[in-house]
């Protein structure tokens, strides 16, 4: 299979193998001091190698003309001035620019929660600056017809995934249930533990839920034919593009998400269009598919999906609001942590894995029948999506602690500052269920928001 997601430039790689130390699936092959290659059949496209690589196109080593040549090879705009590194992801900027220029298309965009706590860094702001309002303004200046938000679908995810968990617990379904928001984790499981597939939640990721809702519910609200609706997503992730291309992700009748940009690509696009990001005013996301609660925002940090699910699940199961909205027991940065959470009569045993390297022992325990948990969140990247492969790349890895710490802090700060902090309290989500989906795990939900991950991972 030809790689169209992540690759290492053979002319630039010095063979330092630092990337092999962060690759969670041993997908990078080669001898020391010689160019390395990614094995596309094993690569889970998490992009951590892209973050690690420091081997850049150098005037001193490769000559003055090399930079412009490589930039052209990679389809990057002339306004692009950043260094070019050996390990890179394939950019989809051109596709987005074409769609924006097409007068027949109605363009809608969604943005993941982690993007807004990091993108300002690429415009010189301190690490982990929250820029939710500037981000919405920038997307509008770029020319998207509607600026929606993945966070809306994250609230929907909680309704669906929370209900699915309660269903599995009450009806004796397959447990533990694992989250399915992270496509690199889904791919890792398909490649390495196909027999454990039934442990995955059937929920699509928030990106794919939002995409499916854009071209159904959204198309009706906007009065735009779904075929003319072009759906763009901005993600902290280098794997989301491949998730959007999966054969399962066409439940709206077409491809639910047409193209995915990383946080860094969006910054390139903003610079290419000459938009002064730091000078932008704070603007709001468009309603209703851009309305969100604090529970959705924390999807970007490790333990966030779990915490959001507990905030809502507690109330769904007991009829009472959760005593403390901040579920600190599941927060943190340890590779694998677990907690017992009392939900009425039920002691819910939950686990959180962050950094895919930590999932192997958990999966081995699962196979051996030793994993005594109800619900497990798995995120591939070191501290969840805020440290994703598509996030602003640090010049010095020694700044990673500060960058991740600040991004996590900004995420929780944003959550605390929002008027609503539980997914089921989102009025636009309530309206979505009243007018369209009817109920979680209902017929429409089943059709649009859930899936069976069935494809052979070698073919997508």
């Amino acid at each position, binding site marked *: 299979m030809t790689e169209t997601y992540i690759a290492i430039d053979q002319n630039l790689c*010095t063979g330092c193998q630092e990337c092999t130390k962060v690759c969670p699936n041993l997908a990078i092959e080669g001898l020391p001091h010689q160019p390395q290659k990614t094995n596309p059949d094993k690569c889970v496209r998490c992009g951590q190698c892209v973050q690690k690589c420091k081997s*850049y196109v150098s005037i001193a080593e490769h000559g003055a003309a090399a*930079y412009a040549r490589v930039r052209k090879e990679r389809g990057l705009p002339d306004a692009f001035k950043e260094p070019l590194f050996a390990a890179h992801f394939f950019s989809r900027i051109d596709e987005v620019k074409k769609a924006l220029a097409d007068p027949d298309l109605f363009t809608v965009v969604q943005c993941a929660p982690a993007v807004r706590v990091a993108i300002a860094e690429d415009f010189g702001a301190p690490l982990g600056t929250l820029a939710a309002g500037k981000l919405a303004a920038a997307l509008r200046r770029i020319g998207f017809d509607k600026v929606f938000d993945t966070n809306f679908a994250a609230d929907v995810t909680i309704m669906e995934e929370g209900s699915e968990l309660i269903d599995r617990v009450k009806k004796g379904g397959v447990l533990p249930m694992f989250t399915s928001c992270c496509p690199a984790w889904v791919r890792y499981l398909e490649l390495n533990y196909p027999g454990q597939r039934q442990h995955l939640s059937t929920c699509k990721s928030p990106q794919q839920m939002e995409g499916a809702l854009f071209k159904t519910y959204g198309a009706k609200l906007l009065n735009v034919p779904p075929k003319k609706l072009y759906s763009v997503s901005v993600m902290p992730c280098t794997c989301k593009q491949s998730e959007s291309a999966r054969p399962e992700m066409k439940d709206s009748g077409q491809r639910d998400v047409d193209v995915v940009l990383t946080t860094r690509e969006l910054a390139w696009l903003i610079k290419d269009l000459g938009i002064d990001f730091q000078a932008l005013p704070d603007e709001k996301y468009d309603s209703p598919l851009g309305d969100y609660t604090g529970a959705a925002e924390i999807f970007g940090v490790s333990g966030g999906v779990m915490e959001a699910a507990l905030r809502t699940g507690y109330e769904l199961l007991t009829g009472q609001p959760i005593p403390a909205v901040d579920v600190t027991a599941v927060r943190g940065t340890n590779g694998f942590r677990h907690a017992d959470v009392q939900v009425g009569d039920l002691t819910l045993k939950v686990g959180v894995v962050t950094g895919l390297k930590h999932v192997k022992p958990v999966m081995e325990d699962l196979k051996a029948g030793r994993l005594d948990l109800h619900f497990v969140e798995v995120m591939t990247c070191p501290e969840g999506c805020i440290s994703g492969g598509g996030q602003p790349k640090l010049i010095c890895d*020694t700044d990673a602690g500060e*960058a991740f710490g600040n991004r996590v802090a900004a995420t929780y700060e944003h959550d605390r500052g929002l008027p609503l902090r539980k997914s089921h309290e989102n009025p636009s989500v309530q309206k979505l269920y009243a007018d369209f989906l009817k109920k979680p795990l209902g017929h429409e939900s089943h059709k649009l928001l859930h899936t069976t991950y069935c494809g052979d991972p070698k073919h997508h």
Partner: protein
Amino acid sequence: MPSEFGLFVSTDIAKCSGCKACEMACFQSHNIKRNNVGKTVGTISVPVTPKLYVTVIETASMPVQCKHCENSPCKAVCQQKAISRVGSQIIVDEAKCIGCKDCLMACPFGAIALLPFYVGGRQAPQADSSGGKVAASKCDLCYEDPEGPACVRVCPNEALRLTDVNEERKKKNIAAAEALAVINAGDPGRRALS
């Protein structure tokens, strides 16, 4: 702390992976003020111009960088007086450099490169021509950075260290003296004498 002889950064070749993290950190450290470089790659808008040069062969790699020679050939040949000794270190004043390349030729290590010189995100003009300025670029031990050499700080394999030959010599002398004590103790001829 001033030292009698020039400090320099040395490499433990067994540990160096050749990753160029040192080059990126070096460039960042020297361009925070000069070219508004922040902490992410997205804040870089000028060519990466390091002051040390990672060199890779099939069996090894190391960043080649200035040894801050006591009788510096580069300084000796610079007609512009653009290279001088500041404290114990050899420093290039890019403003004075006219790009004659004599220092590149004189340095036996290849520790100096001629690279574009940018200020405020733009290539500075060359003093006597319409072209963009190029200047000699070599290690200055990050003398303006209170935290010391950036390359040493960021090396993921701890392969680099700031070396003071006087200090290192004292440690090696003690080890050598202790070794001599062992050798003497194992020498029966010596034992008989004493």
